[in-house]
């Protein structure tokens, strides 16, 4: 088992490295081939030739791409100097680049945005996992009955409604109309857990609304699949009470794929819930990257992308390990 985990982690590191190479190439090569110069982007409005040359030197854009990538990679571990004559900038490790737009290391931006994204993702995850799986199970056990049809109709609606619609409607109602949650802004958990939860709750609900609908449908389908399995018939044939058949035999098998998807969803949510963050004005990773894209802040996009990818890779590893723990058939021996 330890060997399995180590192999998975090593594999994950390789994947991350590949992602860093590809994103690096995309962000530094594509502008070049399109004829736009990244240096111009950093040099401010209507830059002079000298300013562009300065930025080019400072960012090392005059060096071969391989060398540029090497500096980038090294910076993550040992930090990096951006020097151009008297103009010196120090980016401490882990240096995921330096945002000249915001005049701060990308890492600072990430660490500022991360707690917001993590708060949003985990709170919503708890909500949608509990409600989605709960509704899915109830629906499956009452297949075809009114409660099932009603739940699945609502779920279909919820899946179809975009977050920026449900989010705005909810905001309008609870924040502006009824003033239950006025002036929503992020409060750090450590400052005030109560305010933290109070400010995040509407966003959690909006995000969970969408996801719990998907999870309800997924759980229902998985549960119905499993309930039709031969081993469920065997469990009944043994004379087990129905609650054991459903609660132990069916649930364990039915929830495995749900937990798998959950791990991956959580991984990508941690990379930033762009629409929800934007709708509620939380500067999480999603909103940070959207802003970076709109201002052409390449180092930030690069840093956040790699960071988000790391979450997805980590989630994948955790899901694989989880699967091996739950299902003896995939357990390495």
């Amino acid at each position, binding site marked *: 088992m330890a060997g399995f985990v180590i192999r998975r982690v090593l594999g994950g590191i390789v994947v991350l490295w590949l992602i860093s190479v590809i994103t690096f190439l995309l962000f530094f090569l594509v502008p070049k081939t399109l004829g736009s110069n990244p240096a111009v982007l950093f040099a401010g409005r209507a830059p002079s030739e000298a300013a562009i040359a300065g930025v080019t030197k400072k960012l090392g854009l005059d060096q071969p791409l391989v060398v540029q990538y090497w500096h980038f990679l090294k910076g993550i571990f040992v930090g990096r100097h951006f020097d151009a004559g008297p103009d010196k900038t120090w980016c401490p490790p882990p240096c995921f680049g330096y945002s000249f737009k915001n005049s701060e290391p990308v890492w600072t931006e990430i660490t500022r945005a991360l707690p917001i994204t993590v708060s949003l993702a985990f709170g919503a995850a708890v909500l949608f996992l509990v409600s989605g799986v709960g509704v899915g199970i109830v629906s499956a056990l009452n297949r*075809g009955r009114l409660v099932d049809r009603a739940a699945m109709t609502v779920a279909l609606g919820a899946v179809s409604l975009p977050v920026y619609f449900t989010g705005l409607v909810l905001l309008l109602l609870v924040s502006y109309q009824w003033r239950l949650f006025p002036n929503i802004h992020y409060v750090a958990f450590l400052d005030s857990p109560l305010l933290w939860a109070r400010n995040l709750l509407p966003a959690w609900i909006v995000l969970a609304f969408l996801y719990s609908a998907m999870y309800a449908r997924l759980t229902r389908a998985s549960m119905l699949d499993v309930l039709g*399995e*031969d*081993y469920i*018939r*065997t*469990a*009944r*044939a*043994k*004379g*087990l*009470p*129905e609650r*054991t058949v459903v609660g132990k*035999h069916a649930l*364990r*098998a039915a929830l495995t794929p749900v937990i798998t998807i959950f791990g991956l969803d959580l991984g990508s949510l941690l990379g930033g819930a762009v629409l929800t963050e934007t709708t509620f004005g939380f500067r999480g990773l999603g909103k940070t990257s959207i802003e970076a894209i709109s201002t052409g802040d390449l180092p930030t996009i690069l840093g956040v992308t790699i960071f988000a990818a790391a979450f997805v890779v980590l989630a994948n590893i955790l899901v694989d390990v989880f699967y091996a723990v*739950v*299902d*003896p*058939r995939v357990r390495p021996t």
Partner: protein
Amino acid sequence: MTTEPESAVAADSAGATAAKENQPYLDVRDLRVTFRTDDGDVHAVNGLSFGLERGRTLGIVGESGSGKSAASLAVMGLQRGRRTTVSGEIWLDGENLVTASAERVRSLRGREMAMIFQDPLSAMHPYFKVGDQIIEAYRVHHDVSKKAAKTRAVELLDRVGIPDARRRVDSYPHEFSGGMRQRAMIAMALSCDPSLLIADEPTTALDVTVQAQILDLLNDLQKEFNSAIIIITHDLGVVAEIADEVLVMYAGNAVEHGGVQEIFSAPQHPYTWGLLSSITRLDRTRADRLRAVPGNPPSLIAVPAGCPFHPRCQYADLAGPATRTERPTLETVAPGHRVACHLPAEARVRIFREEVAPSL
């Protein structure tokens, strides 16, 4: 006012005991299982009656969709879906399971009656250890410690011929071979010494050598526990090997029921002839090796009128017009041998002797 219900109860219980005395251990009467579907009602079992004593083995044969499995699942009380209707009577040791509460039938399931399924891989939960699944089956019905139940599980695995049972008890189903899994399934079914064991195609998924071992095992266990066994199969070889009696099913009903000797040496129903002829014979010419019963099993939504087999029966013309309009009932033709066929009795005997038997 007060005496009336009492006497009614007394009469009832007297009737029940009277019935019990000359009633076989398992007594199925006019069993009907109907599934409601969007296309119409599926009459999976359509008025099936048979009895079975302890210590005897009944082989139920018939094509896919003849109602073999539906009937046995009904006996087990596993046909209680919302779209399923079960009617008729299923008496097990003097108790009618059709009218008994679901909870009562559950408490009998696994203890008094147990079932073995066709595919032992899919019939065991892939996430739980073989031993734990047996322990669970034992502990539902016995209030014992986990440790005692585990000892029991090891004993059972050992009894059904699993080598090194003490170690294998902690294996997962996928770590067993097909034959071992079926042995483990049998061990699980036997955990509570059931007096009725239903085996639904227990050897279909196994290779031939393992098949024989499993049948031997069932035979031995029956001698040991004196249980009644129902073995559902479409393999007449299996029936010949293990069964005392044979019930031939067609379109949800019994068409012939008799001792294994009669069924193999003097079968009277054209469908039984068809089944016997369809046994693959390597000593015949290649073209003649596999003789199928012509046609397809009937739709169970619109079962043909009259004898349900008549559209496929090559002797239907000899049976008179009733065969197209009237459903034949099971008639006793010899002690313990019943047939449902409109053909005149002499014609059946003659056709089998002159036309069917020589080519078998």
